[in-house]
């Protein structure tokens, strides 16, 4: 039943949300490697060629694995609805660590409470934060993965901190500018409204 096997592999590639190897698909489905490869071939043929203009999705080879993803043309919009891989609470804790590093865990507890312990565990599991014993507490820094992840061109904690501080200032300034420009817009809108009767009068 090759058609049914195509469907099973399709549902797997869809639900995984990450690249899957032939072995992984084989283990989950119990299909033979040949059947898995055939199914992937059929799906790629269908998605990327036959139905190319009738779908926004594609199946591509990523390294030795395969992934179902949104075509490049459509990524910009779809990115906006996708879930971020670090949930907001955890991201806040990560940001605090990155900005205050090297920072004692006990100090962070004073800042945000008991939550810090669980958060640090999770961030360490994600290899984004490193912890070093220091007396009765732990001193936290970001790992080498951190600058890589956020595209920061430095691995030194002090430089990362500085870079982020500058960015925050820039960010705040930019936000402020946007607020101001919005106010400007509403002012100019008000102006347009004022002008429009004149324009009407002119056209009359």
């Amino acid at each position: 039943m090759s058609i049914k096997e195509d469907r099973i592999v399709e549902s797997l590639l869809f639900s995984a949300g990450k690249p899957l190897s032939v072995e992984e698909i084989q283990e989950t489905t119990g299909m033979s490697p040949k059947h898995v490869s055939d199914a992937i071939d059929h799906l790629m043929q269908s998605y990327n060629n036959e139905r190319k203009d009738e779908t926004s999705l594609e199946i591509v080879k990523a390294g030795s694995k395969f992934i179902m993803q949104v075509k490049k043309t459509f990524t910009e919009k779809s990115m906006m609805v996708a879930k971020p891989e670090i949930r907001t609470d955890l991201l806040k804790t990560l940001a605090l660590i990155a900005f205050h590093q090297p920072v004692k865990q006990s100090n962070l507890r004073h800042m945000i409470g008991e939550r810090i312990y669980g958060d640090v565990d999770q961030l360490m599991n994600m290899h984004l934060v490193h912890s070093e014993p220091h007396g009765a507490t732990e001193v936290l820094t970001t790992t080498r993965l951190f600058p890589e992840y956020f595209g920061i061109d430095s691995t030194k904690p002090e430089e990362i901190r500085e870079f982020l501080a500058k960015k925050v200032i820039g960010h705040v300034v930019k936000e402020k500018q946007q607020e101001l420009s919005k106010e400007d817009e509403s002012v100019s809108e008000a102006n347009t409204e004022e002008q429009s009767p004149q324009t009407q009068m002119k056209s009359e």
Partner: protein
Amino acid sequence: MELDNDIINHLLFHKALIDENNDMSRINQYLEMATAAATGESTSIQDPFDRSVFLAFDLVLNQHMNPWDIDLVSFSTMYLKRAKKEKIDLLTAGKIIYMAWQVLRMQSDHLVVNMETKEQEVDQGFGWEDIPTSSWLANDDEYSYTNLLMKMPQPPLEEPLRRDSTRKVTLIELLSAFDEARKESEQYQLLDHLRQEERIILEQKARSAMKGSAHEDHLEEDVAAVWEKISQFPKKTMNFTEICEVDSAEERIKTFVSILFLAYEKKIMVHQQKFPYGEIFIKTLGFT
């Protein structure tokens, strides 16, 4: 396999329910179908009436009989009358009601397609919608929704399989998160400060109230004794009455004060549903 007379009688009875415009030849057709269907699962339904009802629906569902050929209004009236008078196998009844739903669904689909309003006919008298399925299901009997649900190996709710995917977080999001974290941290520190002040005041008040009383010496012992009872309790949740075995005012106060202390020490969680005189529930924390 032979059809018994009861079934034929009941099929003839269905003839009476079928629209008069249909000719007699139809019933012969049904009889033929019934002969075929009789070799199927319907044979194991013992009650001839149920069997006939089953067959009637089976005809619609499996033999593609026109659903409008069964007059549900008169049929349901007859069926309910019978159900009230005699004890009917509820499993079979459930099955029939379920099938009736399907038939009703087919009828309504049919209705939508035809755009012919037969509403008036349906509105008159008794309809399937009047059958108290929800009360049947909400009852406390063996066939209630609750009992059927608890006996099912799998719950009726299934988690659908959706895409488990996430995207990377951007630097901008990290910066915004810092901005929020900074504000939240300020608020947290302020609240924490207030909480600590409150705690100190409360402790001072409690100490001065206890001073000189006989309770002062025994309080720690009492708390330890109650904690011992709670930790030896087989379940993680219990209520006040279970902990306070001796029913005297002194014992109740002793237990109650100890519980408050244990709650303060975050060893237990205390909650009450009916305020102020309802039962007090105790839940142990951080111990297994």
